[in-house]
């Protein structure tokens, strides 16, 4: 057990646990293939985003962008908003989040509970409306500070300086690191660190593939790649559909007793793919993957009830990662 001066100091240092029941069986005499879960739900607000939130706020403080009493402004409906709200509270800042008005009530309740203020953007206008609302707010409040997690180097640096070293210390024999691809901060930071230290390490991305409703009529010419993304850090990238993500999320709790969110199911799906490949090729493997958060926030989505087909239907149109 450990003791910390404050909740902020308790960020990171998460356990790495073996999953011997889920790891693929290897033939007698073949090299071992092992599976390890990095439990990021053990962070102060329950997700891996606490690391990035803390580092982004500290970097802004050091750069003189954030002064006592300042207002942080970030368009986010997810774990980053919740993490920032906690950090802002303890460091003495105000946090304003812009959310689409069709976000789940749990998200709104959690953000408010942690002390964030919320401005809603009309859902009907889609992405263009979101940009317009955010721009208008920024123009009205030029002193508010945008941390911009998709392009903020401190996001990736958090993982370069904490997640990467923790993994190497706990698993010096690591062969594969598997994580989710969103802002890309986790993969860029941890991936760069491990590549510097471990010859031949594989850095594997798992990105969610939603139902058709989510992509809609999105124009290919208006695509978006986060500024932090550097493809040369990755060795492979998997797209994981809703059904596979749900299947693996359920397997994780059924077989190993580990209750995780749906993005973790997608990550596990990619981790198992590389683990099975290692078995087929007779290679030793220590595959470490990220448990990004626990399942609590997703209970109302229907992902944990009924058949796989029913869960897939319930999740159609939802951003589950």
């Amino acid at each position, binding site marked *: 057990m450990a003791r910390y001066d404050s909740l902020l100091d308790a960020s990171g240092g998460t356990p790495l646990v073996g999953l011997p029941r889920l790891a693929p069986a290897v033939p007698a005499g073949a090299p071992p293939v092992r599976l390890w879960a990095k439990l990021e739900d053990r962070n102060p607000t329950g997700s891996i985003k606490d690391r990035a939130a803390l580092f982004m706020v500290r970097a802004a403080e050091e750069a003189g962008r954030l002064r006592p009493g300042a207002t942080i402004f970030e368009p986010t409906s997810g774990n980053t908003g919740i993490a920032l709200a906690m950090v802002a509270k303890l460091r003495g800042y105000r946090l304003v989040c812009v959310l689409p008005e069709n976000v789940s009530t749990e998200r709104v309740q959690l953000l408010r509970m942690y002390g964030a203020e919320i401005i809603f953007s009309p859902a009907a206008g889609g992405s263009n409306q979101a940009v317009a609302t*955010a721009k208008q707010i920024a123009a009205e*409040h030029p002193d508010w500070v945008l941390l911009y*997690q998709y392009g903020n180097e401190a996001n990736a640096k958090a993982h370069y300086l904490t997640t990467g070293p923790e993994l190497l210390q706990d698993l010096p024999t690591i062969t594969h690191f598997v994580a989710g691809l969103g802002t890309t901060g986790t993969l860029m930071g941890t991936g760069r660190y491990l590549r510097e230290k471990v010859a031949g390490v594989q850095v594997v991305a798992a*990105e969610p593939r939603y139902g058709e409703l989510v*992509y809609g009529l999105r124009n290919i010419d208006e695509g978006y790649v986060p500024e932090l993304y550097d493809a040369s850090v990755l*060795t492979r990238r998997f797209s994981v559909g809703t059904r596979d993500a749900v299947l693996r999320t359920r397997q994780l709790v059924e077989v190993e007793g580990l209750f995780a969110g749906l993005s973790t199911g997608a990550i596990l799906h990619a981790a198992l793919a590389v683990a099975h490949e290692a078995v087929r090729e007779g290679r030793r493997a220590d595959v470490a993957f990220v448990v990004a958060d626990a399942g609590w926030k997703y209970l109302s989505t229907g992902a944990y009830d009924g058949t796989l087909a029913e869960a897939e239907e319930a999740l159609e149109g939802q951003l589950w990662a």
Partner: protein
Amino acid sequence: MAIEVRIPTILRSHTGGAKIVEGTGDTLGDLFADLDSRHDGLKGRLVTDTGALHRFVNVYINDEDVRFLGALEAKLNDGDSVTILPAVAGGAPDFAAVAARGLRAGSPAAR
């Protein structure tokens, strides 16, 4: 046996509205050429004038991103499944990414 190709909504004007089409080819580039012979203009939406995969298009062979498999040179086998998707943050048209990018592009708060 052919290769099954999943077409995103935005490109179905080239496939007569079809969600899934079939094609053949030893590489992804060959497959796109084959598809273009029946679905006019499709290749031009996926590949740039200089012969590279369009920056904001993601293509997956059996769920794996082709940019890590040789891009247009990626090898195909009968029975493979190819999925084409618009590139978006974290696989989704993420509200936060879109809003933050808009902010960054033109606001004083986004220094």
